[in-house]
């Protein structure tokens, strides 16, 4: 079994740090774009059967297309670099966020909605102050799943010049006669980022939904 070259890692610590930050930026931008598209869509289709089926169907098809193919399909329209990766990754996350948001919103009990209307809240206020907060656990589950998979798929961004930890695996590892050290480092760092971001979002969810904590209801 080939050994790990710790000296190589030490010499390239700066590069690795830059790639890690790039990886986080790609993930963050993708998730922001995905949320900006998915939340309004989910709210718009939440009470309608056919529009929901269409939105979920389109998002599911996007989710099925292999990442490298999706980035490649975007390349004739965008420059090489971060843009095709971010658009592609955001497209992936849509399915999870749209479906979970709609399920969360549909799970709000009708009596709660009626009570809010009875207290004189406008439909917009009902949505923002009652429905969305109550749907938050379901939405956050979607966001967490999407974030974890985005961190993983973002390794493919390196193929279209998008940077990130995929560069460590592809440019520094595979393309240099399967040099193990950067491939292993890339795998470990990406996995650690996914676990850390998932824990961070779980913490955010805990803070955002005080009513859901045990013993507080």
């Amino acid at each position, binding site marked *: *079994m*080939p050994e790990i070259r710790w000296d190589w890692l030490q010499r390239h610590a700066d590069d690795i740090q830059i790639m890690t930050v790039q990886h986080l930026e790609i993930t963050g931008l993708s998730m922001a774009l995905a949320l900006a598209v998915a939340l309004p869509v989910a709210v718009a289709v939440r009470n309608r059967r056919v529009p*929901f089926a269409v939105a979920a169907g389109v998002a*599911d*098809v996007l*989710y*099925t*297309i*292999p*990442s*490298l*193919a*999706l980035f*490649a*399909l975007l*390349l*004739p329209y965008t420059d*090489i670099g971060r843009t095709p990766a971010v658009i592609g990754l955001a497209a992936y996350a849509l*399915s*999870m966020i749209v*479906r*979970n948001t*709609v*399920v*969360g919103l*549909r799970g709000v009990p009708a009596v709660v909605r009626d009570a809010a209307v009875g207290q004189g809240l406008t439909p917009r206020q009902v949505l923002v102050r009652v429905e969305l907060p109550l749907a938050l656990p*379901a939405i956050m*589950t*979607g966001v*967490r*799943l999407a974030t*974890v*998979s985005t*961190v*993983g*798929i973002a*390794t*493919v961004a390196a*193929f*279209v010049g998008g940077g990130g930890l*995929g560069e460590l*695996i*592809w440019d520094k*590892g*595979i393309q240099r006669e*399967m*040099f*193990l050290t950067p*491939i*292993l480092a*890339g*795998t470990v760092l*990406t*996995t650690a980022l*996914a*676990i850390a971001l*998932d824990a961070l979002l779980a913490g955010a969810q805990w803070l955002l939904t005080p009513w859901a904590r045990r013993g507080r209801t």
Partner: protein
Amino acid sequence: MSPHDVWEAFNDPNLDGPGQLATHVRLSLIALAAATAAGVALGVAAAKLGGRWTAFMVVSVSNLGRTVPTFALMALVVALTSIGERPALAGLVLLGIPPVLLNAYTAVRGVDPAVTDAARGMGFTRLGVLTRVEIPLSLPLVFAGIRISAIQIVATAVLAAAVGAGGLGVLILAGLANSDDAVLLAGAVPTALLAVGTGLVLGLAQWLLTPRGLRPRTTSHTLAPHRTAPRPPEKDTP
């Protein structure tokens, strides 16, 4: 660049699009068959024989499998062994197992004990209960796992080209390396169609296998699949 250029690139003898497509399908099918066999066997065995510790391990391993990037996993397997088709295939099998395993385990554990008790009461042997009651009732959820695995395997097989195993990724990588949009699309379009087709066919199979009363109207992604929570074993009343 026109669709004609893409078609020409796909059929270019140097790139051999049809051959790469065949390799891609073959790699994916072998990996899916192996991952399904291993996942179902391990999942059913864990559900039938395992206790609380097994449950913890199944969920942990599956969740870890979800966080390790598929591309990185395959690259790692190849880096630790050798370049070529077999190691890439091993990587594909490895990443295909967790969704099937988790779903098979959850499904078998989720079978209502009242149903298995009734089957026992009617004189079914333990093996009979497993093969004729528990496994049929678990099929929809198991198929959902197979579908997730299949989509991941087809997608990751694109990246198998990066580690010398061939497949449609060869065309995409060639297109990227030479900035040739026609070659790029000659790889990307069949890949996308293959993946979407796989998802639709297996989705349909899953829907057909699910009894009408159990078909959900709205489905969401969950952290762990659950149909019914596994019940604690009921104590025998003397």
